[in-house]
């Protein structure tokens, strides 16, 4: 009798572990990959919106010795100002990698390409990342039932100043009394 119970218990533990592992794998898959279509390999993504002639960063940086000290940049990149993005708590090397300038850096230390920047943003903005992956946050263009194009976070939000700028509205409709 005790034997049978032991076997049952082992079996249950085994089942729950494998279920847990599966769920964990699904979760990892969700956080690590771009949105996917069932029909074909992936969506089209336009290249990251670099300033003209700035990439690859290593072009300039390879001759410099990296300085990990937090400071205000006074010689280069003076046009980049962190605004509305926790500028007090954060500076360049929280997202940009110290050694490989052509890569971004996650909190885990993993280096990622600029084309995968959504994983970097998703570290803090998990809810937006989840919505973006399912097509609620952000804009998708192309075919509603076929090949789509999605945009990286940085296409709409300036990563150094992510809040949307105000826009000039298009002209209001004419009042009916003015339509002849």
């Amino acid at each position, binding site marked *: 009798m005790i034997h049978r119970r032991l076997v049952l218990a082992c079996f249950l533990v085994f089942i729950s572990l494998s279920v847990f592992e599966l769920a964990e794998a699904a979760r990892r898959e969700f956080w690590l990959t771009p949105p996917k279509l*069932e029909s074909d390999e992936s969506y089209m993504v336009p290249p990251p919106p670099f300033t003209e002639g700035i990439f690859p960063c290593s072009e300039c940086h390879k001759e410099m010795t990296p300085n990990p000290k937090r400071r205000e940049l006074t010689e280069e990149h003076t046009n980049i100002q962190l605004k509305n993005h926790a500028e007090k708590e954060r500076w360049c090397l929280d997202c940009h990698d110290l050694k490989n300038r052509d890569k971004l850096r996650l909190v885990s230390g993993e280096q990622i390409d600029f084309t995968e920047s959504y994983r970097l943003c998703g570290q803090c903005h998990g809810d937006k990342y989840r919505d973006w992956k399912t*097509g609620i*946050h952000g804009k998708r263009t192309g075919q509603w*039932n*076929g090949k789509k194009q999605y945009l990286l976070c940085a296409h709409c939000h300036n990563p150094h100043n992510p809040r949307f700028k105000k826009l*000039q509205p298009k002209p*209001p409709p004419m009042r009916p009394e003015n339509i002849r």
Partner: protein
Amino acid sequence: MSDMEKRDEHVFRLTRRKALKGLALGIGTMVLPAKDASASVWESFFQKNFRELGKSERRVILERLEKEYSARYKKPVRVKDTGPIEGVLYGYGLDLSRCIGCRRCVYGCVTENNQSRDPQIHWIKVLRLAKERGVDLEHSEQYYNPATVPEEGHFYMPVQCHQCENPPCTKVCPVQATWKEIDGIVVVDYNWCIGCRYCMAACPYGARHFNWKKPGLPAGEMNPETHYLGNRPRPVGVVEKCTFCMQRTREPDGMYPACLEVCPVGARKFGNLLDPTSEIRNVIENKRVFILKEDLNTQPKFYYFYSV
């Protein structure tokens, strides 16, 4: 002169000669337009309701319209009659927490769907509402014109045809010139519409618009990719409305509607309600959603939602 003869001078008497003369004159005027290249006047006059047409009849009509429009707008114009796709029911989502009221969608729609520029017709109306009042249509403003949007303390709600599942507008049409297709799009046959505007009175969303004048559509701005029930050039005296850009969406590899593609903040979502993996289903299942004037039981397929 006898009394009888005297009376004849004042009373009109139809004689055989006069009747034949009148008949000849009548037939002559009927044939006249055929000479100056607008034979289509009579062809369109005797055209049947679009839903009663057979395949070959439709082809003849589409070819006639293509010829007519190509001549008028001086470029090759295509008129499609693409039917609904099986297993598709279109739905639209609009994110009220994202919309900034910039009206890009309004003008994107005008360009895509060949609306009249003068007199002006807009299928999309953007309402400005006060945040403290919520969705209170009585205090909405559609003529707002600040230097920049969004404005402090306001939110914006674009309204267009809601493609109701239970549309009040189609029920009141006395000639059945408007109906709901099986993919949920409510359409108008501009050739059958008599312009009585009952449907405009019946629509609770103000989504239907009337061509009081011959639509002013400059040839250079005319979009030559058209659909018979959608964005083809309209004649004077008919009602028109949003069709979810059926000339774009009703294809096996259908494009998103034009208003969605121009939205700078990604507030607009579109897809197949019958596909559980579609974006619109995702929105309905996971976000706070409401439909406008739910109490009227029109069952719109246009869903307002808040993504945050």
